[in-house]
C-alpha cells in the first residue's frame, strides 16, 4: 500500500488519500511514519486490532494528528473509536502497526509516550470512596509528576470542583463526577488529551463548560482528540474531523473542507397544486416529491457554479407548475456523517471527494 502524506488539508477515502488543493504531498514507501512524525503529535501507521473472539475492531488505520489541533473522531457505535484511543493510551494491545506519541513509540518508549497523554474515558471510573483532591493528586503522582498544590488548586477551581475537594466522589452529582475524571486526566499537565465521548449524558451547562475548557486548553497548546455523538459540536469545535467505520478511517479532513466538498444544498419548493408524480419534462434534474406531492425537493452541489435552479424554475413555469414558497438549506456535518457511515453513502462520498 502506498500513501500520500500531505501536511495541509487532506482527504482520505478508504485506503486512498487525496491532496486538498496543494502540491506539497510526500509520496512515501512502505514505512512512512518517520516522514511525518516530526510535524504530527500522534502518528498512527497501519494499526490493526483483532480481539480474541475474532472481532476485527481496527483494520490498517493510518492517521496523523497535528500538534495543537482539536480533532474529532466520529463513527457509529462499534466502529473502533474507543479501541483506537485505548491503543494509543496503552490500555489495549494492538495486533499490528505502529503508534508514535510526540515522537515516542507507544510500545518501546511507553513511559515517555504515556507521560504526554491524558485520557478521559467514556465511563466514570474512579474510586467512589475517595476524596476529590486525593484522587486528583494520586493521578498526578501516578503519571510521574511531583506534587504541585498550586496547579491542582487552579485546575479544581477551573472545573468548579474546589469547593468539593474534600467530598467523597460518591457524594457528587453525575456531572461533577465527570469533572473529576477531567481533572484526573489533566492533573499531570498532558500535551495530548483524549476525550472519549465527554459530553454523553451530561446537562447543557456542563457541556458548555466542557467546550469552554477545551477551547482554553487548545489556547495553551494542548492537542485534543475527542469522540462525540454530538456532531454539531464537532462541526463547531473541531479543526479536523475523522470518520471511522468498521475499523477503517474512511475520511479525514478539515471540518470546513468536508462541509465544502461533501456538503449538499437543497431547494424546497412548496407547490400551489400537489403533484402525483414527477413530470417527464423535469427528468434532467435530481428531484423528489415530499409531503404527499405538496413539496418538490431539488438537491444540488453547493460548489457547482451552475446550480441549474434558474432553468428548473423556467421549465416549471413552462409546464405550468406554480409554487407559493421556496427555501434552501445546507447539509450539516451530521447529514454528511450519516451519508458516509451508511453503506449507500459510500459511493456518493467518494465521488464527491474526488
Amino acid at each position, binding site marked *: 500500500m502506498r500513501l500520500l502524506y500531505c501536511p495541509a488539508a487532506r482527504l482520505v477515502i478508504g485506503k486512498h488519500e487525496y491532496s486538498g488543493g496543494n502540491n506539497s504531498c510526500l509520496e512515501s514507501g512502505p514505512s512512512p511514519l518517520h516522514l511525518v512524525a516530526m510535524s504530527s503529535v500522534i502518528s498512527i501507521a497501519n494499526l490493526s486490532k483483532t480481539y480474541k473472539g475474532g472481532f476485527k475492531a481496527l483494520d490498517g488505520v493510518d492517521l496523523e494528528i497535528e500538534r495543537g489541533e482539536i480533532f474529532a473522531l466520529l463513527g457509529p457505535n462499534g466502529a473502533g473509536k474507543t479501541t483506537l484511543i485505548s491503543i494509543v493510551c496503552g490500555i489495549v*494491545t494492538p495486533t499490528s502497526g505502529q503508534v508514535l506519541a510526540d515522537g515516542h513509540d507507544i510500545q518501546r518508549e511507553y513511559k515517555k509516550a504515556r507521560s504526554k497523554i491524558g485520557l478521559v474515558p467514556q465511563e466514570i471510573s474512579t474510586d467512589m470512596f475517595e476524596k476529590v483532591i486525593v484522587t486528583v493528586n494520586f493521578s498526578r503522582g501516578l503519571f510521574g509528576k511531583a506534587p504541585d498544590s498550586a496547579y491542582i488548586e487552579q485546575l479544581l477551581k477551573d472545573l468548579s470542583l474546589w469547593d468539593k475537594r474534600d467530598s467523597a466522589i460518591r457524594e457528587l452529582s453525575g456531572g461533577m463526577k465527570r469533572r473529576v475524571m477531567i481533572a484526573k486526566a489533566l492533573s499531570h499537565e498532558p500535551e495530548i488529551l483524549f476525550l472519549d465521548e465527554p459530553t454523553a449524558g451530561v446537562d447543557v451547562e456542563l457541556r458548555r463548560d466542557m467546550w469552554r475548557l477545551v477551547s482554553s486548553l487548545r489556547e495553551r497548546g494542548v492537542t485534543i482528540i475527542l469522540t462525540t455523538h454530538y456532531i454539531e459540536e464537532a462541526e463547531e469545535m473541531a479543526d479536523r474531523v475523522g470518520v471511522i467505520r468498521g475499523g477503517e478511517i474512511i475520511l479525514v479532513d478539515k471540518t470546513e473542507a468536508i462541509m465544502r466538498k461533501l456538503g449538499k444544498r437543497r431547494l424546497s419548493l412548496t407547490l400551489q397544486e400537489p403533484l402525483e408524480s414527477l413530470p417527464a419534462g423535469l427528468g434532467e434534474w435530481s428531484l423528489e416529491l415530499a409531503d404527499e406531492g405538496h413539496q418538490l425537493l431539488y438537491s444540488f452541489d453547493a460548489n457547482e457554479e451552475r446550480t441549474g435552479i434558474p432553468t428548473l424554475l423556467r421549465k416549471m413555469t413552462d409546464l405550468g407548475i406554480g409554487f407559493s414558497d421556496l427555501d434552501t438549506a445546507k447539509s450539516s456535518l451530521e447529514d454528511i456523517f450519516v451519508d458516509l457511515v451508511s453503506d449507500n453513502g459510500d459511493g456518493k462520498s467518494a465521488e464527491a471527494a474526488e
Partner: protein
Amino acid sequence: MNVHGVWALYRYEMSRTFRTLWQSIVTPVITTVLYFVVFGGAIGSRMENIGSVDYGAFIVPGLIMLSLLTQSISNASFGIYFPKFSGTVYEMLSAPMSPIELVMGYVGAAATKSIMLGLIILATATLFVDVRIDHPFVMILFLLLTALTFSMFGFIIGIWAEGFEQLSFIPMLVVTPLTFLGGAFYSINMLPDFWRNVSLFNPVVYLVSGFRWSFYGEGDVAIGVSLGITAAFLVTCLSVIIWIFRTGYRLKD
C-alpha cells in the same frame, strides 16, 4: 524509575487500609486472640512442651504466619482486583509505570499492611504467653520475605480472578488448609514418617519452620532450606507477574 508513581500508588493503597482500619487490623487481631484463648489457654495448658518450648508459645510463630499469609494474599488480591472490577484499572494501564513499579506500589502496600498486622499479633501474643525471639534479624527477614512473596501471590490471584467468588477461592480452599497442615499448631516431626514426608511438599512448612527457628532456634527443617524455598517461591511469583504484564493476561485485551 517513576518514583512519584510508585509512591502515589503505595500511599493510595495504604490510605485504603487506614480508611478500612477496622476490617484491616482489628478483625484478624481478634481472631488471633481467640486462637490463643482456645489453643494456648484451654487446650495448650493440657499439652506437653514441644521441644523446649511451651505449647502456648510454640504456636505464636505459626499463628503470625497464618495471618501473614492470608492477609498478604487478601490485601494484594483485593488491591488489584477492585480496580479491575470498578474499571479504574485503565488509569494504571495508561500511566507511565513499568510492571515492576506497579508491583512495588501494590505489593509494597499489601506487604506493609501484613507486616504491621504480624507485629500487632506478636505484641498481642506477649500478653498471653512468654515469647522470646532468639534471632530477631532472621525473624524480620522472614516477615519481609513471606509478606512480599504472598502479596505477589495475592496479586496474581487478583489478576486471575474474574469474580469475588474466585477471589476467595484460593485463600479458602488452598492456603488455609496448607497453613493448618503446615505445622502452625504442631511440629511435623510429631507425624508418622509417611505423613511427615508428604508434609515436606507443603511450602508453608518451610515458612512456619523457618519463622519458628527465628524465635526459638528450633525448626522442623534446616533454616537454610526454609530460606531457600521461600526465596524460590518469591522468584516464581515475580516471574509470573512479569509474564502477566508482558502478555497482558486478564489485564489488557
